[in-house]
């Protein structure tokens, strides 16, 4: 009986704890199975310090060929599922080959780790950081334990942040001028702006402002582009006449946005767009899309 159980149960418990695990901020992270888990949050160049405790099951001894902990930064493309590309890989040897009879704790430390990319869960791509503990056992198969953590990097407020101002139209039908107060928004920002109607000859029904995310993966001929509409925010109800100006005030905080990612490790990019959509009474849509840069500011609180 014991034998059978022993064959399916791991021979030991591995738990990974962070040095400042109690005080460190935890953020939700979506796992592959759809569950959301709270995981610690780090940023680049932080020291990742903690300890790993290994406890053999009920006094059994565990033979091993060495124990190590790795810090991995991985990119997974969904068309190539299960195949991780490690862009960061750091290793600390914890123990030389030997036997474990009882619980043993190993401290570890990765100092000022370069983690240039943020954790990202996209449509076609995933970027994750993980601590991987491996108890190497030649013949019996290694015992592996993972601990995810999230990385977010903060940028200072941009020194130049021009507004977006543009006049667009369809000749003799519709001329509008719109203005967004900035071209770069942080994640909790508010988009302020207005739309000014210079000429209206079509019967408009309403007007929305959409936030769209464009995720492109791969490169060259294999480029994959996926666009999602993250926000659809009604700006106007009814048909304006010439000379009307409609205010825009869109709070970004309710939406799950990330910063703009530019060519992450030559694997993928994430861009954001504001899409102004006017709908006429026949449900025809007239739109104008403008890229905005999203960035993450250090949270003050």
């Amino acid at each position, binding site marked *: 009986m014991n034998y059978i159980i022993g064959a399916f149960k791991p021979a030991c418990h591995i738990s990974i704890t962070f040095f400042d695990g109690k005080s460190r901020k935890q953020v939700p992270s979506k796992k592959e199975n759809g569950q959301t888990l709270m995981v610690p949050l780090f940023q680049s160049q932080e020291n990742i310090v903690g300890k790993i405790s290994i406890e053999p099951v009920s006094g059994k001894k565990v033979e091993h060929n060495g124990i190590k902990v790795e810090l991995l930064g991985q990119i997974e493309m969904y068309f190539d599922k299960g195949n991780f590309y490690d862009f960061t890989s750091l290793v600390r040897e914890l123990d030389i080959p030997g036997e474990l009879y009882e619980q043993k704790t190993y401290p570890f430390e990765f100092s000022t780790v370069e983690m240039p990319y943020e954790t990202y869960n996209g449509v076609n791509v995933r970027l994750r950081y993980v601590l991987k503990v491996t108890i190497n056992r030649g013949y019996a198969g290694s015992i592996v334990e993972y601990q995810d953590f999230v990385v977010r990097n903060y940028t200072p407020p941009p020194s130049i942040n021009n507004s977006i101002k543009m006049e667009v139209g369809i000749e003799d039908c519709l001329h509008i001028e719109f203005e967004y107060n900035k071209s770069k928004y942080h994640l909790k920002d508010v988009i302020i702006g207005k739309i000014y109607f210079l000429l209206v000859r079509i019967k408009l029904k*309403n007007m929305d402002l959409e936030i769209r995310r464009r995720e492109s993966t791969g490169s060259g001929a294999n480029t994959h582009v996926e666009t999602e509409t993250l*926000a*659809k*925010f*009604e*700006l*106007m*109800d*009814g*048909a*304006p*006449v010439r000379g*009307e*100006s*409609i*205010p825009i*005030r869109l*709070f970004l*905080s*309710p939406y799950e946005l990330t910063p703009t990612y530019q060519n992450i490790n030559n694997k993928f990019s994430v861009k954001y767009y504001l899409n102004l959509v006017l709908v006429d009474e026949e449900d025809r849509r007239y739109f104008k899309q403008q890229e905005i840069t999203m960035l993450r500011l250090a949270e003050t609180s």
Partner: protein
Amino acid sequence: MMAGVAEDEEKWLSAGITGLQQNAFYMHRALDSNNLKDALKYSAQMLSELRTSRLSPHKYYELYMRAFDELRKLEMFFKEETNRGCSIVELYELVQHAGNILPRLYLLCTVGSVYIRSKEAPAKDVLKDLIEMCRGIQHPVRGLFLRSYLSQVSRDKLPDIGSEYEGDADTAMDAVEFVLQNFTEMNKLWVRMQHQGPARDKEKREKERSELRDLVGKNLHVLGQIEGVDLDMYRETVLPRVLEQVVNCKDEIAQYYLMDCVIQVFPDEYHLQTLETLLGACPQLQPSVDIKTVLAGLMERLSNYAASSAEVLPTFFQVEAFAKLNIAIGKVIEAQDDMPIYGAVTLYASLLTFTLHVHPDRLDYVDQILGACVKKLSGKGKLDDSKATKQIVALLSAPLEKYKDIDTALKLSNYPHVMEYLDNGTNKEMSNVIIQSIMKNRTCISTAEKVEALFELIKGLIKDIDENLQDELDEEDFKEEQNSVARLIQMLYTDDTEEMMKIIHTVRKHILTGGPKRLPFTVPPFAFSALKLVRRLQSQNENVSGEEVAATPKDIFQILMQTIEALSSVPAPELALRLYLQCAEAANDCDLEPVAYEFFTQAYILYEEEISDSKAQVTSIHLIIGTLQRMHAFGVENRDTLTHKATGYSSKLLKKPDQCRAVYACSHLFWLDEHNDMKDGERVMLCLKRALRIANAAQQMANATRGSSGSVVLFIEILNKYLYFYEKGVSQITVDLIQSLIELVKQEMSGENTTPEPATDAFFASTLRYIQFQMDKGGVVADKYKPIKI
């Protein structure tokens, strides 16, 4: 088809209500459990029902009111939430996360209301933000209701002076600015409704729009209630801004309604001080705007204001209200080319009412208005527009009512000119009004000049204006109106005999133009009026003798003679005869024998030549006898002639009983109590005897023709005459005569063929009772009666 639409609408409404209630239920649940997130979610869903485009404004309103009630509860919750420590600023942001704009803005306004109340930000800033955000609703109906909601929740939170939300120096201006902006935007939306949708639904749309107008007008009410709006601010900001919007929207319905609103909402005092601005807007309105009603409303208000207190009148003078109004009206009439006549007249009528209240002493203003009216009417001929006519009547009646004195109206040179434009019927009606006014106020028209003017004014009643046009006037009405003319003639009176004479000349001149139909009504009052003067002259003569008087009774009698003669054209011989007799009596009182004789002659001629109807003859002859009996001016000869004639006529009457009565009446002609030279017992006796004979003859005739003896009433009547003269001491009447007549009557009454007549019996019985009474009285009379046996 229409029924189908209405049914569908009903369905959509109830679906909307159901959806709203459902979400309201969940919202309540969230509120009860202090679940802010759910409360926001369900309230937004609830408000989404207001996004419908399928309901008419009327039905939409129903839905809106339900949502409104729910939002009150939500507002309470928000308030509690902030008391519990939830930051109002965060809440203000939180509601803006809603994706749909309409629910978002309703929620924003609701939280905004709590925000202002919390005083964490100046009211003006919150209001400014709200009003700006509301621009997102461009749909007219939804926008109007949303802004109306904003107006509703903010009206007790304006940073007005004295309000707890009062801000810094320009605080009232901020409040005004907010309301003005909301007003402007709402009006734009409201006007825009007119231009949306197919042209064939125009009527329906206009109806729907008028259902919504109070939402727009409400803003003006709010403005009117802001404490901080003093005269200066009203003049500098409020009025110009409102008018700018009104003029610029170029919409007929809005312009009319809003102008009226402005007039009704703001204080009279402000209107007075900004009259120029307000009036300046009028000519700029669309030509189809019913500006006259608007201006009429304004003038009515100002009139009432002026009437309310004498203290405000100087302000009216100071701002030259009349001149401004007058100019404005002129401009409006000029600008609105196709304004119907009645519109213009209405305006003038209102202005007139105003003037009468404010400048009762400025007759020239009144005349000026009438003049302007004439100018507008000129070249148009008689009016055939009943509305215009009505207004002119109002226009003309106003001064009469105000001054209660026709004198004033007569001074208005343009008054008759205006009247000329009335059609004949109305002209008469107006004339009647004038007469009524005179009668009611018992005004005496005391100079010939005024009389002349008055007759000019009411000439519609005095003569046929258009001879070709045969009046199809109701006989009754005609009588009515001529009777009032007759009454009017009595009011033309002055104590100054000389002037009175002139008046009489004038009246005569006019009434003679009246034609045969009117003369019977107008001549009698004229005659009596003239005779009144005669009597006055007479009594004056007695007081101041020897003075040279311009008017003498003789002249008047001459006039009368000629005037009465005119009645022959009617012909109205009986009336003329009466008047002649009246004149004769008056002449008698003046001791003018020849004149009196002449009148009698005329009367006799009429009797002989014109009065042929036997009944009329009877009446006339009795009148003649009665009048003649009282004449004392005649010498023996003249009197003889006349009495002779009268008795002659009497005995020539057709029916015997009439003859009999006339003849015994003649007996009085020969016995005048006060004049000893006119006591001729012989002839009295002669008359009575003749009467008796005729009575006999009548009796016999009755016997012959009907086989029964006729009435004995004639005998009894003669018996009474006997008794009368017996008492007077006519020696020819003896006891025997009386006795035999009594016997005769008794005999007749007991005769076999006699049908008993209760009236006759009673008559006889009371005659006998009289005799008995006289007997019992004692003294000389009793002695006289004693010998009679009954």
